[in-house]
C-alpha cells in the first residue's frame, strides 16, 4: 500500500464526512432547540435529492446552482411541517413524537416510490467524472465541490446563530424555554423557523450528495440512521459536534474499509459510536448535563 493511496482514501473520507456532517447538523439544530428527534430526517433529504433530479432533468440546472433554491423549498417544507403537524406534539410524550415522525417518514418514502418508482436515479454533470491529481493523490472533483459547499453552508449557519437577532433568539429558546416565553419571544414561530433551518440544511446536504451518489426512495432510513450516529458521536445538540462527527465517521468508514474489509465499513462507524457512548456519553463536543 503506498502512502498516496492511504492519503487519497483519507481525504475522500473527510470530504464525504463534511457533507454527512451538514446533513447531521440539521438534525442537531432541530433537536438542540425544538427537542424533537426528527425521524424523517433522511427521508427529507431524499426529497431534496429527487428535487435535484427533477430540476436537472427539466432545466439542466447544475446542483451547485440549485443549492439555495432547494434549501429554500426544504425550509418551507420544514417550517410548515412544524407549524401544522409537529407543534401540537411538542409537549406530548416522546413515543407519540416518535410515532408521528416515523409515520411522516413512511408517507414520504411511499410518495417518492409512487412518483419516481423504485429504481435508483442519478445525474451526470460536466464534472461528474473529473478528478484532481495533486502530487499523485487523485481526488474526486465532485466530492471537493460538495465538501466546500457544505463548509460554506455550515459557516453561514454558525454566523446566523451567533450574529443575528433571530439566531440569538433561537439560542435563547434552546437554553431556557420558560425564560424565552417570559421575555416575550414568539417561541412557536422560532420553533418553526428552527425546524425550517434544520430542513434547509438537509436540503443543502441532499443537493450536494447528488453530485457524488444516486438516490432511491428506500435510502432515506439509512441516512436517518447515519445522521443519528454522527450527532450522537459529535454530541447531540452541538453544531460543531455534528461537523466533527461527520468527518470522524467519514474518515473511519473510509480507512476501516480500506485496511480491513469494505463490506463491513459501517461496522467501524458503529464501533466509534459504542466507544463514545461508553467513555463520553455526551458526545465528543456535547455538554455534560447535570
Amino acid at each position: 500500500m503506498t502512502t498516496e493511496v492511504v492519503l487519497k482514501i483519507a481525504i475522500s473520507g473527510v470530504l464525504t464526512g463534511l457533507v454527512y456532517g451538514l446533513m447531521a447538523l440539521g438534525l442537531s439544530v432541530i433537536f438542540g432547540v425544538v427537542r424533537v428527534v426528527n425521524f424523517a430526517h433522511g427521508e427529507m433529504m431524499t426529497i431534496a435529492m429527487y428535487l435535484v433530479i427533477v430540476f436537472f432533468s427539466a432545466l439542466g440546472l447544475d446542483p451547485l446552482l440549485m443549492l439555495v433554491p432547494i434549501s429554500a423549498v426544504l425550509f418551507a417544507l420544514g417550517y410548515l411541517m412544524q407549524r401544522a403537524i409537529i407543534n401540537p406534539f411538542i409537549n406530548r410524550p416522546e413515543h407519540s413524537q416518535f410515532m408521528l415522525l416515523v409515520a411522516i417518514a413512511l408517507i414520504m418514502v411511499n410518495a417518492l416510490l409512487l412518483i419516481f418508482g423504485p429504481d435508483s436515479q442519478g445525474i451526470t454533470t460536466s464534472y461528474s467524472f473529473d478528478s484532481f491529481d495533486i502530487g499523485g493523490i487523485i481526488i474526486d472533483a465532485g466530492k471537493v465541490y460538495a465538501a466546500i459547499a457544505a463548509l460554506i453552508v455550515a459557516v453561514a449557519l454558525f454566523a446566523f446563530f451567533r450574529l443575528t437577532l433571530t439566531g440569538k433568539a433561537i439560542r435563547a429558546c434552546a437554553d431556557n424555554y420558560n425564560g424565552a416565553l417570559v421575555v416575550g419571544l414568539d417561541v412557536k414561530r422560532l420553533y418553526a423557523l428552527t425546524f425550517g433551518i434544520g430542513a434547509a440544511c438537509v436540503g443543502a446536504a441532499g443537493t450536494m450528495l447528488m453530485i457524488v451518489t444516486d438516490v432511491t426512495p428506500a435510502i432515506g432510513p439509512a441516512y436517518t440512521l447515519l445522521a443519528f450516529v454522527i450527532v450522537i458521536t459529535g454530541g447531540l445538540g452541538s453544531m460543531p459536534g455534528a461537523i466533527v462527527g461527520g468527518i470522524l465517521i467519514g474518515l473511519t468508514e473510509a480507512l476501516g474499509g480500506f485496511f480491513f474489509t469494505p463490506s463491513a465499513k459501517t461496522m467501524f462507524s458503529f464501533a466509534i459510536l459504542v466507544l463514545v457512548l461508553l467513555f463520553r456519553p455526551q458526545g465528543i463536543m456535547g455538554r455534560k448535563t447535570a
Partner: protein
Amino acid sequence: MASKTRISRRTFTAGMGAAGVVAGTAPFNIISAQGAPLKVGVLLPRSGAQAGIGQDCQRGVDITAGILKDLKLPTLQIMNGDTETNVEVARARAERLINEGAQLLVGAFDSGQSTAIAQVAEQKGIPYVINIAAAPPITEQGYKFVFRNFPTAPTILANAFENQIEIFKVTGNAPKTAVFMHVNDTFGSAMQKGFTGTMAKFADTPYKVLETIAYDGTARDLSVEVAKAKATNAEALVMVSRLNDAILITRELVKQRWSPKCVLSMGPGWYEDQYLKTLGKLGDGPMSFVPWYDPNKKLSKALEAALAKSHPGINMNTNHVYTFEALLVAADAYKRAGSADPKALADAIRATNIKDNVSPGPGIQFDAKGQNAALRNSAIQNRGGKLVTIAPKSASNAAAEHPMKPYDKR
C-alpha cells in the same frame, strides 16, 4: 298440438342450483378443448425490490402473442400475478392463480420465489415452466410438473470460463492478474464460492486472482472499494454485482483513473439498459457472461423486431428472451397435447423438441429432471450503447474488442 312445458318453482330452483354448482366449480374445470386459449398464470416480481426486472420480463410477455400467431401456435390467455419480490407472496399468488383457473404457470425470475411456486405447482399437479432461476436444487427434487429452460448457476460459471478462454485465445492478449469484486448478498456470495470452485477446474484460465473484495451492494459510495482494487495493480476486474453498484463502480474507475485491460462481469448490471443510458460512452467495453440469445437464429431476429416495435429503444436481453421461451414452451406443448389436461400438458412439455428458438444451443429439450441441459451461455460486450455477442463463436455476431479502450481516451 304442441304441449306447453311449464317450469315450476321447484324446477327453477333446481336449475339455478345446478347452474350455481357448475359456475362454482368452473375454475377447477381445467380440461378445455383445443381451440380455447390456454390459461397461463405469469408470476413475476412486478413490485418490490425486483420490480424493474419483473416489468422488464413483462415486455417479453407483451411481444409473445404476435410471434406465437406467426408460428401457428395456439393462443395463450395470460393471467398476471405479482410476487411482490417475496417468497411467501409468490406461493400465495401461485395458489390463487390455480384456483382462478390457470392451467399452466410461468415465472418467476428469482430462485427463491420460483422454488416456492414449484412446490405449489407440484402439489396441485399444474405444469410450471420457469423462465429465469439459476439455483440447481429446483430441478433436483424429482418434480414431475416443473420444467426449467434456464441454465443453472454451475453451468453459467463453467460457460463463463469457456467463453473467456475462447475470447483471450482469439485476441491473443490475456490478462495475467485479476481482482475479484462481488456484492456481499446471497447471490454475490454464492457466485464468489462458485467462481473459485469453477476456476480451479479450468487450468487454462490465463489470470490469477490477486484479491477478492466483498462490498455492500446498498453502499452509497464505493470509492474505497475501487481504490483497494486499483492498489492491487491487477490487469482485469472480475465483477459480480447489481445495476446500481455497477454504475457506481464504473464512475469510480473513471474518477480514480484506472482502466483495467478488461471488465469481466458474471452477473447483472453491466449490460443493462440503464447502465448504458446512464454512462453513455463510458459504458462501452465491459464483457458480461450471461444466459443470452443467439443473434443469428431466425426467431431471435423476429423477437428483436417485435420488441423494437412495441418497446422502442430497449435492447433485447435475458429477461425478454427466457420469458418468451417459457411461453413458447407452453404454447408448443398445448398444441401437441391437444388438451389442457395438466398431465397431458406435462407429458407434452417433457417431450419438447423445439429447434426454432432464440437461446444459444441446439434448441429446447428437457431431461428427466425437467432441465434444459443443452443451453449454452454467451459472452456479450457493450458497444456504442448496444450489445453484441462475442462468444461462443457459433452464436456470436461480433469479434471481441480487447483490451477495452481506456476511459480517458474516449
